[in-house]
């Protein structure tokens, strides 16, 4: 179990990207994300939501779960957690920021990604495998992954039905920011959207859980493709930060 970071000082081996996994009260996928990133060569550390600095981290993951109980609506309270100002700051600096499931919901509530996630079309929670297509490689999650590649990655959500207004959707399409689409839309998301990125491509949100698909013993290794891409970007950033220093 990774220990909570004390937020002071970066560790010596800078070639291994150091990833902050944000833990809100009610988050529950933080250990899984940290384990999956660790298995792919990243150094993941849990960061409590009251931290105000993300100095020394090369990338940030907002994991799945139910931050603040999802009370009011998913992400609505988490966006006010102290750590979110730091997340916005590093995102503006170009650091890779990944929101998985509840983390995606938090990013939309925080205004770091456009649109919103509403209740699934069928009005039930859905935990099942989803067939995905990589539809853009201009994000930190899909850089280097062939567009059109099929991936099997589980979904696990009640509010995963992505929605946005028509002009936002047009913009997402025009700017090639829809990074993942469902092959068979499970939840009613507009344009089959499973994941999007910001204009710069460094902030990505997706509803499927890549950390649950990093071990063939658990059914699929396809999630490792995405997380490896994310780590590679973070690693390159770590290396450049080191050489600049």
């Amino acid at each position, binding site marked *: 179990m990774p220990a909570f970071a004390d937020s002071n000082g970066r560790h010596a081996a800078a070639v291994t990207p150091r990833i902050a996994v944000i833990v809100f009260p009610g988050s529950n996928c933080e250990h*899984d994300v940290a384990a999956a990133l660790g298995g792919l060569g990243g150094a993941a550390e849990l960061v409590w939501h009251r931290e105000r600095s993300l100095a020394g981290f090369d990338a940030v993951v907002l994991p799945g779960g139910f931050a603040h*109980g*999802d009370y009011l609506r998913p992400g609505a309270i988490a966006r006010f957690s102290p750590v979110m100002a730091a997340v916005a700051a590093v995102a503006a600096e170009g650091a890779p920021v990944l929101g998985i499931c509840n983390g995606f919901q938090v990013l939309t509530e925080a205004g770091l990604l456009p649109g919103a996630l509403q209740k699934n079309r069928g009005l039930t*929670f859905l*935990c099942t495998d989803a067939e995905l297509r990589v539809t853009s490689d201009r994000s930190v999650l899909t850089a280097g992954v062939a567009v059109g590649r099929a991936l099997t990655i589980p979904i696990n959500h009640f509010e995963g039905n992505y929605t946005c207004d028509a002009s936002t959707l047009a913009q997402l399409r025009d700017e090639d920011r829809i990074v993942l689409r469902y092959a068979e839309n499970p939840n009613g998301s507009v344009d089959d959207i499973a994941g999007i990125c910001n204009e710069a491509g460094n902030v990505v949100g997706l509803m499927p859980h890549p950390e649950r698909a990093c*071990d063939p*013993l658990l059914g699929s290794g396809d999630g490792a493709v995405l997380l490896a891409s994310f780590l590679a970007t973070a690693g390159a950033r770590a290396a450049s930060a080191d050489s600049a220093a």
Partner: protein
Amino acid sequence: MPGFAGVGPVPGSVTAMDPRVHRALGLTDDEEATIRSILGREPNHLELAMYAVMWSEHCSYKSSRLHLRRLPTTGERVVVGPGENAGVVDAGGGVGIAVRIESHNHPSAIEPYQGAATGVGGILRDIFTMGARPIAVMDALYFGGWDEPRARWLIEGVVSGISGYGNSVGVPTVGGEVAFDACYAGNPLVNVLCLGVLPLDRLVLGKASGEGNLAVLLGSSTGRDGIGGVSVLASAGFTGGSARTGSAVDGGDGEAHVADGPSSGAVAEGGDDAKRPSVQVGDPFEEKRLIEACLALLDAGLVVGIQDLGGAGLTCATSETAGRAGMGMDVDVDAVARRQAGMEPFEVMTSESQERMLAIVTPQNLDDVLAVCARWEVRADVVGRVTRPVAVPAGGRGAGSTTGGAGGADGGSSGPDGAAGRLKIRAGIDGPVLADVPAASLSEAAPLYDRPMRAVPPPTAGGADDPDTVAAPDASAMTRDITQLVRDPAWVYRQYDHQLFLNTVVGPGGDATVLKLAAPGVPWTGGGVVLSVDGNPRWCSLDPRAGTRALVAESALNVACGGGRPVALVNCLNFGNPEHPEVMWQLSESVDGMAEACQALEVPVVGGNVSLYNESAGRDILPTPVVGVVGLADRLSSTPPGVSLVDGGVLLLIDADSSDAPRPSGLGGSRWAVECRGLTGGVLAPVDLDAHRRLLDVVVSLVTDEVAGADGNGGAPANRIAGIHDVSDGGLAVCLAEMSLRSGIGMHVRGVAGHASLFGELPSRVVVCARSATAAAEIAARANGAGMTVTELGTAGGERLVVDGPTGGSRAGSGGGLPAHLVDIAVGDLVISSRAWWPA
């Protein structure tokens, strides 16, 4: 609130109280007399309220305790047996498995979402109170059916309650079962099992030792929700909506009777709906923080003992922790944080507000404990202190020397010189004493009833309801029957997060769930834990003893099919009204059957729960013992074969029965007989437990070759088996159909004698899909060597499920000589029909 309304607190302790007071609280006159004798004086209202909840059927097991003693509870892997919050099994390598199952039937019948949700919350607390991280929930759900709006409200409410609470509290729901019978229409069953993993050196028990140590209440504030949950709600039956009339029912030796009649406010006034305020309301977000805070406290070694607050609330937690340690406790009722203004002490002491824990800590560690709680944003208040035992006051008889109204009492624990720990409820920690009782008397001196029993005669063989007497159905009827019996429960389990913690190797929907044995803080070392939850009211109603034996055997076989060696069992005994002698007989027989099977299979019982008064409108449910069997797999390197097929695979039936002696058809108590033909009689096929045990060994060794490698140490899998599935509910027909359903592959099976061979539920059988003829020969040799009978059924492949009758039969319209199809159905059609049962 029902049962308590209009009864104010009565200060002092000398004036005899109106007998309506204790009756309204659910205590009998005899029980009230016992309390007087324990105290050596008149109890006051607060004391009566505390005894009433602790001596309820739900908390005291007063009708079942006598019988539960017959269950085998020890074994070399058992670290903690029944009686604590959860059983603990040694899984090797310093890792323990904590497991428990509990019912939340009555609350779920009244308010399905919150009833089921708080059932999950309660069982989780039982697990993490032992120091274990909860990693898996499983549910056994029994409903009446979909045929009316209320039924749909119940099913959707229960499933979404489990989903809503379990998913957001962050514990995966990895499997379970869902079954339907009209007897559950007014009283559904919601049994929830939780399994946790702990480093054994973190194990902490619910003991309040050490004079001067502090009792710290963690978590939620205390409100008026759930007052009387254990007594008013869980320990009485449902009337079916209307008010109940006031006839006292004899129990025990004819004197004791459970609260009933006009004085029983909740039951008599307003019917079932009036009980809704006795259902608790859950907050999974609070529970999630509580889990993290408690595990952090235990990791840091900051607590002496810890216990959850469930049924009977603070009264139970304070009296049990003190009682187990032989100590007393002063509780400052004013220090308990309240959700509502104006709560009386009896309300604070009996509230079942959820998401609360009681930690016993030394004064030196208090600041650290408060800091950990603040870190996790969990409320913590010192509400009491541990006191040493004191001499029993003159006239009082202490905790251990009472006799219940009927049948005597268990021994209590008192100090070496007869001193007993006193539980004192005070207004202010040094303030006036509001209640003063021997702590252990609340649990250990609870009445113990040897209720009368009356055997239910077995159905007459050859009677009108015996499925062996009906004419054989034709092929189209059998095909229709299969589509009726095969249901894909994905509608239920896809609403549950069943993957969190990255442990789920085989998820819901198969014979057993297979998990990596790991948790945050407990790294994976290569082993697996295999779990199955099963009940079978059809078998148990035909013969509760033999039915329960078969049930335990079948559950163990499920676990074996997942590659697990069964090592422990937990049970939830769901029965009707214990005041009905037939129900007590069913319970007693079922316990005996379970004991016999557990002994023969060497699977000790490490925990259990009894749910009685499952009745509505005067009708008891079918006897429904539910068991959860835990198995261990030493090495988990490949995914177990599971319920599957491979194109071209050879289908084998392995049957533990190798004698030539005639057997029943297995149609008695079968799903086909009951659900397709409405025939509830007949003869139940017996289980040969010795042969069954040999079957378990063969199956475990065959599956181990697939998951641990043929070298047993993570090497290449033997690759002999593409699929394995035990033959149980629905017989061979449903077993084969489920293998086709889950793989999308058809099969051609030959030489099946007829409908009895297809639908009969003979025990101790598995179907294996061997990858090749060579593999089939190796498997058959292994099974034959262990005394099993192996039959080649046919081959897997194609898009249709086809079963032929014996060669030499006649095919309709084609003259003689060719085998007749008994069943012929497209796998695609089976997929559609298996989902049609559930809502879109």
